[in-house]
């Protein structure tokens, strides 16, 4: 049996070891670092199945919990990091081209090491139940992301994305800290469990102050999960950042953000006087996010930018699930949706990387004629797009179905109706990719797209999982917390 906190510690140690290995030149090939990192993270992943109970001192101080939810998301984060690293190996040539270096290949090692630290931060986030802990973990994640987003120093768009992410990220951090101080001021606590106990005792005169703090925290977390109206950074950052980092931001960062959101909101849902206001805020957020994300995605021509808007849109469906949290199945629906989102988003990005390498860009038009160039890759992308749109027999459909079911059960008819319209527009913009692959002719002299072995294995596994879970979702529902 392993002490749970050992997991995060070993991820950090792994990161430090890799940094040292790079600095002292233990390996000539930079990609070896990535393989070591993947191996180490896989070992940690296996370790999550041999977790002992949380040690007593942690239990008492209550800032670090290990429950089914956090364990599930720790695995979620580990899998995403491994996939990001697989993608990064594929992406290495582009990094080396766009990073100035004295010797060829210098300065690209950290590209594989920083995600490991991000992973540690995300894992802490999943267990954090104290505002201080949440803040520290979040900063570890965000700061390592600042570097990764701006990693391509010769690419103007990457630098621009980095700056935008830094400034807006710092702003949202400010909101978070300020919100926490209001909580602390009114309840005298930073621990969420303690806050839950104190909340009913807070005099009514102080309620506006708590709501103010809650609003500030919601702003900060809305930034992390890319909910409208805090989504302004998403399209530019997603487009400019290196593709693996974009995928990481879109999936792992968002998932951890949602988990923190669930944990933070939980105490407030137990108090009736906050419940209604919070519920209203969630419905409004979901409405705005759904409408903005889906409508703004329609005219996009760049695939990464499209996926950026699509990630906003998916945040909208997830918020719809959160707003319906009173339903018995809603919690599992949200987690199911996030897991499906991981599969399909990573699949899309894994395919984007070799296509970008082969055709020199990441516009939708670069997918033209892919069905004739590489039928297998096109089929995988077809599955990803279908799943993102929510076509039956894919995991994305069941995700949407569960969310809609929960929302209908809670009587959120307005949200559901808007959801129908946005799903329809989703069909349009995801099918644009299918159209490019199957309808449009390939550019002349375009050969098959080369995919590395590992990537193709990953693509195959993800596509198969999407279909299997689309036929038999019980496999995943069975292991949900």
């Amino acid at each position: 049996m392993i002490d749970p906190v050992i997991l995060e510690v070993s991820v950090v140690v792994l990161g430090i070891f890799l940094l040292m290995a790079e600095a002292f030149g233990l390996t000539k090939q930079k990609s070896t670092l990535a393989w070591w990192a993947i191996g180490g993270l896989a070992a940690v992943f296996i370790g999550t199945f041999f977790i002992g109970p949380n040690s007593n001192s942690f239990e008492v101080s209550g800032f670090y919990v290990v429950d089914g939810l956090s364990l599930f998301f720790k695995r979620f984060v580990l899998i995403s990091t491994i996939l990001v690293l697989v993608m990064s190996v594929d992406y290495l040539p582009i990094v080396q081209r766009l990073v100035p270096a004295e010797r060829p290949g210098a300065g690209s090692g950290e590209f594989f090491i920083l995600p490991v630290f991000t992973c540690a931060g995300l894992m802490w986030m999943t267990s954090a139940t104290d505002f201080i802990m949440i803040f520290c973990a979040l900063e570890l994640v965000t700061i390592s992301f600042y570097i990764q987003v701006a990693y391509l120093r010769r690419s103007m768009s990457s630098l621009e994305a980095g700056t935008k992410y830094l400034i807006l990220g710092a702003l949202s951090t400010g909101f978070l800290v300020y919100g926490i101080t209001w909580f602390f001021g009114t309840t005298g606590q930073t621990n969420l469990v303690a806050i839950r106990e104190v909340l009913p005792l807070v005099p009514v005169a102080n309620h506006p102050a708590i709501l103010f703090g809650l609003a500030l925290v919601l702003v900060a977390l809305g930034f992390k999960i890319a909910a409208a109206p805090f989504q302004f950074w998403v399209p530019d950052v997603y487009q400019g950042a290196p593709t693996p980092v974009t995928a990481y931001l879109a999936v792992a960062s968002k998932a951890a953000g949602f988990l923190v959101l669930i944990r933070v909101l939980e105490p407030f849902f137990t108090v009736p006087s906050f419940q209604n206001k919070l519920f209203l805020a969630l419905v409004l957020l979901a409405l705005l996010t759904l409408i903005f994300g889906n409508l703004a995605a329609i005219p996009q021509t760049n695939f990464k930018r499209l996926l950026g808007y699509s990630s906003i849109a998916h945040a909208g469906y997830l918020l719809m699930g959160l707003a319906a949290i009173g339903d018995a199945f809603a919690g599992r629906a949200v987690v199911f949706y996030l897991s499906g989102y991981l599969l399909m988003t990573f699949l899309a990005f894994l395919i984007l990387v070799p296509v970008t390498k082969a055709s020199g860009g990441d516009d939708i038009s670069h997918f033209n004629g892919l069905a004739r160039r590489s039928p297998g890759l096109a089929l995988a992308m077809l599955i990803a797009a279908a799943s993102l749109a929510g076509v039956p027999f894919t995991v994305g459909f069941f995700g949407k179905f569960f969310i809609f079911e929960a929302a209908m059960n809670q009587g959120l008819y307005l949200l559901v109706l808007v959801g129908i319209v946005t799903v329809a527009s989703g069909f349009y913009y995801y099918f644009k990719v299918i159209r490019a692959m199957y309808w449009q002719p390939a550019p002349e002299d375009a050969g098959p797209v080369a995919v590395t072995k590992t990537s193709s294995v990953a693509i195959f596994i993800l596509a198969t999982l999407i279909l299997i879970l689309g036929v038999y979702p019980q496999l995943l529902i069975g292991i949900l917390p």
Partner: protein
Amino acid sequence: MSTVSPLLFLILIPLVAAVLVMLGGKSRTVSLFASALNLILLLVLASKFRASEAGFQFVSSFPVVPQLGINFILGADGLSFVMLFLSTAVTLAAVAVARPPVENDRWFYISLLMISAGVIGAFASVDVFLFYMFHELALIPTFLLIGIWGSGDRQAAAWKATIYLATGSFVLLLGLIGLYLLQPLGDRSFDLRHIIQLAETGLIPDNPIVYLLLLFGFGTLVSLFPFHTWAPQAYASAPAPAAMLHAGVLKKFGLYGLIRICAPVFPESIQALLPLLLVLIVGNILYVGYVTIAQRKLDTMLGYSSVMHMGYIFLGFAALNVVSLTGASLMLLSHGLTVAILFALCGEIRERTGTLEFSELGGIARATPKLGLSFGFAAMASVGLPGFIGFASELMVFFGAFVGQPTDMRAQTEAAAEVFRFNSIQVVTICAVWGIVISAIYMLRAYRKIFMGPLPERWSRLPDLAGLPRVAVVLLIGVMLFYGFFPQLLVNLVTPALLQP
């Protein structure tokens, strides 16, 4: 769990064939073989079907999401068998008349096989949720078939059809979720048998909003007026086999769903919202009928005519008595066969002449007598000439509709709206009979413009219908004639399913 239903193989055969084609099998041979095998298997199953027993047979069940009562239940009764026969027969015909495109013929046949697997799965499902999911299997193949191999303004047509169908199906999904949530807590299921049983014992409240969601969801998929505009365009642009499968079989899904789910569960809502539905039906029959007359191209004309004929089936559904519902069910089969033949022949004409404009065609029956004769048969069947199955079904719909809704409810309708002592549904029935005249006008006119008159020099060397397409068309016509003379066979099959689902 019970044993595996043999119906599962009906779904698996096209899917396995699609995988084989993907892996490099000879696309046309594999598809033909698979669809022929499927039809034979269905006929074998039909011969084992015990028509005297009520309820679903060949049932097998497998839980998919037990928490939400979703099970993969296969089963078939008389009505499903009729639809399954339609699906497999039209699939075989569609594959037979398909001409392999120059490039990427694999994708072409895979798409056809996927649509086929989807419709067969839908009609063999007893679980409402799986019924819905199987229907959606056709969404992407249709998008690809029209977009890649279509003619005319194919891109716009493909987009329009896809967006309409996707939106319609999500509205339908909401309706199904609503149907699920109407059931008493703790006893919810998507199993059709369970739902109907609950409805009979009065445990499902008759909720008009859920009915409306289902009506418009299914209605969009069936091109109910005014949500029909995607259909003519899509069918005109689609390659012949795709139009055959989509207009002939896939579109029947919506009406089948209305007859199967809405009729037993929401009789009062159907009654209460009858005026709305009747207005839409008149739109479907008269408005679209006149629009059909105005068409100058064969493909769009057939597209509109298939929309128009949906109005009759809706009428049979709206009247809600056993005769009219039986007529509507028979019409699902008859219209499916007719429209499949018409689209197949339309594709053959396009293949030969390269145009479908009435003004450019003419007299080609001299060069292609067999093609002309089969088109004549199909056109007559479409109008509803006695001797074809279409006549029997139309007659039953009209008789059923004129009698009107079950007597205990009729009193309200008569008091509500009465024109010359006819109640509203009778007035609509009269309009529908007038619709037959309309369809005779456009069908005969199309026949005259294409096949009659002097033969222009440039069409004098057209090859006649031959080979597999001819066999397919002759067989379909034969089936229509056979059931036209012996409709009682079908009635005996369908009525028990409607009386005691």
